[in-house]
């Protein structure tokens, strides 16, 4: 294929989901098939980038038009998006979801893909806002009061940060007469700070990402899987892209990566609710992605698959409380799926998470290494909670306990449908196959290191944390605090950038 055809194919591929999204609504009987077709198409597109090794830099319409940048890094994210969306569609196949749900799913899928290929701040802004709206409509799909509040809170936080982001974007334009990512370095520090605030908050990074646990844990199971698996990466990807394009910004991104990994994992360790644990672990894993931007793509891929399968499993378990789950036991099949995904996130050999973790740790700078190793042990502690839920063949039939989750999801709890197993199969097979991507990881040294870290984590859990009843305060997750924190993060990023610019001008 010539470059021209590839760019045409890319443009058709990126605009198709938005077109199909509305077609889905007009042809409700084909909703599931159309949605599935879009997801499969994205997977094929991502594979094509890997096979051809193509690198595209497209400029549409003159100087001020949309710029797109497609390379292997985007391909990893697009592939994650495609696989997670496919799994979610399979999961919903037998449920009575209306075509409205699939329409939003397809549009969400398309706009997340758009963030993975665009290379200027305004296209990114539009894509991020479409994500907000589509994600909001998915969160509030069940129309219960709680879901509406959670959705409203999400929309409020993301729209407010996007306003800050817009100010940053215009400052970049003022300095460079262009909205391209490359202009970021020639812009004043306040522009960088404002844009970073928007991306950090959208991506659920550090304290500005504390809206994430409630949103991800209180959404419906397939929606949580989608949000945690791919949607947060829409905020993280531009940060990685900027860090790789502009060397001056990389240290800030790495610093945020380390801080996020530690913050998320320290909350996740003490959480006693399954879905909240997973949500906090998402925060910490995004820290890992940012800590080594050059290899973040593969890490994001393994995390996306593992986390969305964990969310799907957690939504099918009989309870959301760890203690209750331990007392009642869970089905053996379910437990096996659960440990494969958990081990991948911990970085256990034989699953793709191992390669990703070794690769990330290899690319860390010396000052990051200790903190990230602590975060790895913390991850092992967190997921020990899932792994040591003993698997039993026949769970005792105790009277159903009231579930924490809102109404509407109770029906699906009674019987696990075959769609669920299809979804899990896709994600877990993906995790095992992707194991071959970085096979240089399998050296004796790496194996011993990772096993020791996991063993330390599990020991800490079994000896100390299993009995602990520490409850961390949740005050910081209140709505007003979330908005207030934005101003603090803004000041923090401003000074980080300012100091770095000063330092680099001296040398």
């Amino acid at each position: 294929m010539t470059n021209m055809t590839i760019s045409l194919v890319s443009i058709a591929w990126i605009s198709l989901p938005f077109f199909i999204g509305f077609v889905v609504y007009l042809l409700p009987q084909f909703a599931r098939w159309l949605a599935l077709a879009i997801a499969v198409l994205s997977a094929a597109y991502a594979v094509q980038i890997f096979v051809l090794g193509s690198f595209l830099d497209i400029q549409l319409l003159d100087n001020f038009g949309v710029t797109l940048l497609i390379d292997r890094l985007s391909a990893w994210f697009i592939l994650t998006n495609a696989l997670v969306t496919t799994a979610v569609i399979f999961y919903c196949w037998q449920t009575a979801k209306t075509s409205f749900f699939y329409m939003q799913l397809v549009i969400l899928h398309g706009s997340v893909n758009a963030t993975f290929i665009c290379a200027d701040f305004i296209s990114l802004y539009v894509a991020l806002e479409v994500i907000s709206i589509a994600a909001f409509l998915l969160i509030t799909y069940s129309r219960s009061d709680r879901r509406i509040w959670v959705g409203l809170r999400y929309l409020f936080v993301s729209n407010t940060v996007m306003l800050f982001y817009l100010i940053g974007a215009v400052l970049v334009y003022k300095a460079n007469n262009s909205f391209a990512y490359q202009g970021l370095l020639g812009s004043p520090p306040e522009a960088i700070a404002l844009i970073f605030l928007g991306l950090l908050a959208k991506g659920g990074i550090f304290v500005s990402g504390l809206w994430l646990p409630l949103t991800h844990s209180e959404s419906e199971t397939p929606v949580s899987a989608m949000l945690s698996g791919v949607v947060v990466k829409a905020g993280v990807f531009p940060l990685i892209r900027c860090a790789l394009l502009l060397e001056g910004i990389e240290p800030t991104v790495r610093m945020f990566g380390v801080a996020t990994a530690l913050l998320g994992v320290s909350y996740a360790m003490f959480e006693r609710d399954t879905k909240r644990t997973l949500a906090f672990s998402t925060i910490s894993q995004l820290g890992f992605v940012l800590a080594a931007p050059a290899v973040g793509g593969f890490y994001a891929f393994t995390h996306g698959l593992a986390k969305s399968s964990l969310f799907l499993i957690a939504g099918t378990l009989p309870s959301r409380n760890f203690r209750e789950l331990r007392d009642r036991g869970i089905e053996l099949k379910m437990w096996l799926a659960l440990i494969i995904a958990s081990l991948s996130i911990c970085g256990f050999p034989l699953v793709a998470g191992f390669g990703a973790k070794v690769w990330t740790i290899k690319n860390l700078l010396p000052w990051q290494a200790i903190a990230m190793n602590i975060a790895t042990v913390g991850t092992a502690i967190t997921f020990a909670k899932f792994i040591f839920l003993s698997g039993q063949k026949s769970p005792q039939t105790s009277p159903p306990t009231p579930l924490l989750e809102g109404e509407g999801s109770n029906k699906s709890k009674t019987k696990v449908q075959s769609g669920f197993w299809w979804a899990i199969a896709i994600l877990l097979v993906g995790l095992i196959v992707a194991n071959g991507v970085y096979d240089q990881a399998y050296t004796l040294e790496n194996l011993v290191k990772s096993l020791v870290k996991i063993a330390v984590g599990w020991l800490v859990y079994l000896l100390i944390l299993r009995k602990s009843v520490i409850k961390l305060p949740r005050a910081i997750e209140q709505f007003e605090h979330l908005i207030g924190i934005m101003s603090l993060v803004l000041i923090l990023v401003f000074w980080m950038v300012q100091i770095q610019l000063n330092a680099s001008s001296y040398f």
Partner: protein
Amino acid sequence: MLEACVLATILCGFFGIIFKKNLVMKIISMDIMSTGVIAYYVLIASRDGLYTPIVTTKEVAYADPVPQAVILTAIVIGFSIQALMLVCVMKLAKNNPTLEASVIEENNTP
């Protein structure tokens, strides 16, 4: 001077989101904030001149059309998000007639 006024508007909106108790007031504050941002775009567009960028025989200083074109998109997006939020508020008002954000939050957080 103008820039200071615009930034003050943005800050007013931001503090309104934090300090106003009523959910509708919070949404209006957000609108004020976005008005400020839009004004800032217009202000930056006019930094080199005020004339509409249409070719004429006269030699005049034109305003920059790019920020204006961009902010049009943002206005539409902001408007649609606000519509969605107000629908949410209508739904929530059935069970929480006072619409106090802290009360709604307390009722709906596990």
